[in-house]
C-alpha cells in the first residue's frame, strides 16, 4: 500500500525552476532536515491532527473526521493558507495521501507540454518506495515515456535509496547547504556526511544534474569556505552545473527573517569564487 501512495503536499502542472524544461512537480510532505532558511516550512512535518488550524479556517473548510484526524474540504477551501499560518508544527492539513495512478492521471493532462517530472518536497527521498513506483509508472506509460524523472533532494539519503531509484530516475538535483559539517548542522539540524556522499555517488553514476548552494551572508558565505567548496566540487566534476542561490526572506519562518539577503555585489563575489575554480556551468539566482 505504501509503495503505491504518497503523502502529497501539492502539485504544479508547469514549473520552469525545477530542472530542465517545463516540468510537472510533485511536492512530498515531510523532511528530515529542519532548515532555518526553509522557504516552505509547512512541508517539514506530517500533520499530528492537533486541530489548531480548524478554528483558524475562515471558510470552515477544516474539521475532524470520525477517527479524530483533521479533514480538509478542498471544494470550499478559499486558499488563504490561514491553516498553515496557525500551525505550530510546521505542517499542513492539506497534504493528502494519493495513489500513484491518481498522479499519473494528472500528469497525463500536462504531458504534451513537459520535458519531465520532478519530485520535490519536503524531502522526496523520505518516501522512496512511492517515488520509485511513480517514476516506474511514468516510464511504463506510453503517453509519458518521453518524460524525464528528476529528484530534487537535500541529499540526506542513504546510498541504498539512490541505488534503488537508479533504474527509473534520470537525474537528481542536490542542495548542499554547507561543506563545513558544523555550520551545516547549525543550518539544518543534521550532519552533512550523507549529503556529500550522495553528491559523490550520483556524480559517479552520472545522475547528478546540478548542485544548488543556498548562500546566506554571515552564515555560510565565508570566502575561504566557498573556495574550498568550489575545489571540492571541481575535483569531483570540473564541468558540474552549479546553481548559486542568494538567500531570500520570502516564505521563511518569522524567526529567520533576521537573516540578511545578499546584495548583488556579494552575489557577484560568490560567483567569482566559483568561476575561477572550475569550468562550472554556473547559474546565479
Amino acid at each position: 500500500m505504501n509503495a503505491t501512495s504518497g503523502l502529497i503536499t501539492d502539485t504544479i502542472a508547469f514549473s520552469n525552476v525545477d530542472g530542465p524544461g517545463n516540468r510537472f512537480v510533485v511536492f512530498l510532505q515531510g523532511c528530515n532536515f529542519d532548515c532555518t532558511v526553509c522557504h516552505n516550512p509547512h512541508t517539514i512535518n506530517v500533520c499530528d491532527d492537533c486541530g489548531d488550524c480548524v478554528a483558524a479556517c475562515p471558510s470552515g473548510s477544516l474539521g475532524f473526521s470520525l477517527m479524530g484526524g483533521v479533514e480538509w474540504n478542498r471544494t470550499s477551501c478559499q486558499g488563504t493558507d490561514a491553516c498553515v499560518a496557525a500551525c505550530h508544527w510546521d505542517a499542513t492539513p492539506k497534504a493528502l495521501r494519493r495513489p500513484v495512478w491518481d498522479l499519473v492521471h494528472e500528469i497525463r493532462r500536462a504531458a504534451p507540454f513537459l520535458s519531465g517530472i520532478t519530485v520535490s518536497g519536503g524531502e522526496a527521498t523520505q518516501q522512496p518506495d512511492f517515488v520509485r513506483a511513480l517514476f516506474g509508472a511514468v516510464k511504463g506509460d506510453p503517453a509519458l515515456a518521453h518524460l524525464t524523472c528528476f529528484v530534487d533532494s537535500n541529499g540526506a539519503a542513504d546510498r541504498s535509496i539512490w541505488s534503488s531509484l537508479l533504474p527509473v530516475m534520470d537525474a537528481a538535483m542536490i542542495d548542499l547547504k554547507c561543506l563545513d559539517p558544523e555550520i551545516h548542522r547549525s543550518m539544518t539540524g543534521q550532519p552533512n556526511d550523507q549529503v556529500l556522499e550522495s553528491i559523490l555517488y550520483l556524480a559517479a553514476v552520472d545522475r547528478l544534474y546540478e548542485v544548488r548552494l543556498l548562500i546566506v551572508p554571515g552564515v555560510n558565505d565565508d570566502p575561504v569556505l566557498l573556495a574550498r567548496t568550489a575545489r571540492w566540487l571541481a575535483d569531483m566534476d570540473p564541468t558540474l552545473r552549479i546553481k548559486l542561490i542568494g538567500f531570500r526572506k520570502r516564505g521563511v519562518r518569522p524567526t529567520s527573517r533576521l537573516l540578511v539577503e545578499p546584495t548583488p555585489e556579494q552575489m557577484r563575489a560568490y560567483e567569482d569564487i566559483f568561476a575561477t575554480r572550475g569550468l562550472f556551468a554556473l547559474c546565479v539566482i
Partner: protein
Amino acid sequence: MEMAEMQSRATAVVRDGALGYDQKLRRLATLATEAIEYPAISSACREALDKRVICDMYEGTAPYTPRYVLPDYERAIAQGSAHLELDPPGDLDDALSFLQIMYAHVPSVTTYPVYLGDLDKVLAPFVDDASDEQLDRSLRRFWIALDRMLPDAFVHTDLGPADSRITRSILRVERSLRQVVPNITLKVDPSITPDDLLLDAVNTVFETAKPHFVNHPMMVGDHGERYAAVSCYNSLKIGGGAHTLVRLNLKETVLRHTGGIDTFLAETLPTYVELTAQLAEARIRSLVEQQRFFETHWLVREGLVSMDRFSAMFGVFGLAEAVNLLVAYQGGSGRYGHDADADALSYRITERLADLVEDRPMPYCEGGAGRCYLHSQSGIDLDTDVTAGTRIPVGDEPPMLEHITTCAPHHRLFPSGISDIFHVDETAVRNPRAVVDIIRGAFAGGMRDFTFNLDSNEFIRITGYLVRKCDLVDIDTRGARHSSDYLAAGSEASFHLSQRAPKRIGCHERDQRTDY
C-alpha cells in the same frame, strides 16, 4: 456628416499638439471619406452598426483599398516592377532597397504595409556570398529604416518554418535593436523547425516580445503553403489578403436575446451573423464594384496580388461575456475558463459561428472558397467592458495548462487567426526550454497561434501589436513616433492590459501560489 461637424473635427486634428504631420494627414484623409455616403445596407444592419453590435472597424465609408494586402514579394523580386521602374535586384543591397521602395507603394487601411514578405525566403537568393557579419550589418540598417519609415506596429514580417542564416540574423538584429517595428511571426512546423531555432526565438521574445508563433501545418491545411500572418494575428493568403474586417460583438447579441441557449444558437446568433455578413458584403461590393480597386491598382496589374486570393474577415469578440451571461440566464454561476459547462457552451457557440459563416456565400471571396474567414478579433482601443476575441478576460485567466486547454479547441475554427496571450514569469529567462516545451505542446494540442509576453518586459502586446511602455508616457501632450502608440494609449486606459495575470510556470515559494 454635417459640414459643421466635419469642420470642427478637421480643426481638432490640424490643431492637435501631439499629432505629427503625417498622422494629421492620415486622419484628415479618413475624415474626408466620411463625406461620401455609406455603402447601401438594410435598416436592420444600419441599426446594428449604430448600436455597435456589429462593427466596421471605422475603416471609413468608402473603402478604396483592401484592408490587408499581402503582395507576393518573391515574385516582385524575380520579375522587377514596370510601375516602379525597377529591374530585378542583383544583390542583397539592391534587394533591400527594392523592398524599401516597394513598401512605400503598398496600400493598407493604416497607410503602412501590414506585410513585408517572408523575409527569410524573399532574401534567400542574395545571401550566399555574404558573411554573417555582413548580413547582420545590412539587415540592421534595413531594420532601423523599417522602424523609422514605417512607424506602425501592424507592419509585419514572417519567418520559418525552416531554419536559415537570414532568420538567425534577423533574430540577432531584433535583440540588439529592441524596436517596435516590425512585428514578427515565426512559422513552426514540429517536424521542420529545430529546437535550437525555437530557443533562439524564445530568447528573442524575452528581449523584444517578438516573435509570435503560428502552427504551420494547421495554417497550410487552411490556406495552402503560401500564407502569412500579418498585422496583428491575421493569417491570409500571400498574393491576396482581406478586403475588409467586420466584427460581431457576441456580448451585445446576448444582451439582445431573451430565452435559452438553444434559441440563442438557433435564432439570435444567426440573425446577427447575417447582419454582419451584410455589412461585409456591402463594403466588399463598394471596394470592388464602386472604387474598382482590382481594376486599377498596379499590384494587380503586375500579378503581385490577385482578387481570387482575397476574402474578407468575419471577426467575433466578447465570447467570454456572452458565455457568462448565457450561463447566468440559466441560473448558473460558472465562468468561461473556470467551469467545464461554461467552456462546453463556448465551444457550441464558436462551432455554430463557423457553420453559419460557412453557410453564407460572399462575393469576390474566392480566396476563402467564396466564404468569409472566421477570425477571433483581438480588440480595438474603443472597446470597454468586453473581452477581445475568444479570450478569457484579462486578470481572470486560470493557470496556464487550464488556460491553454480551454482555448485550444476554438483554434481550428478560426483560419484567419485567433490569439490568446500568455504571460510568463521572469524565471523562464533562465530556462527558455520550458517555453519551447509549452509551444510544442500547444501546437500538438491544436492551437493555431501562440504568443507569450515576459512579465517584466518593457514591451506590451496590446491586441497583438506592440508598444514600448516608455512610449505611452505623456503621449497626450508629447505625441508619439509610432502611429499605433495612440491606439495603445486608448487601450491601456480602457483595459489595463498590462495587468494580465502572469502565468507562473515556476514557483519555489509555495506560500506565494495565490499569485496565480
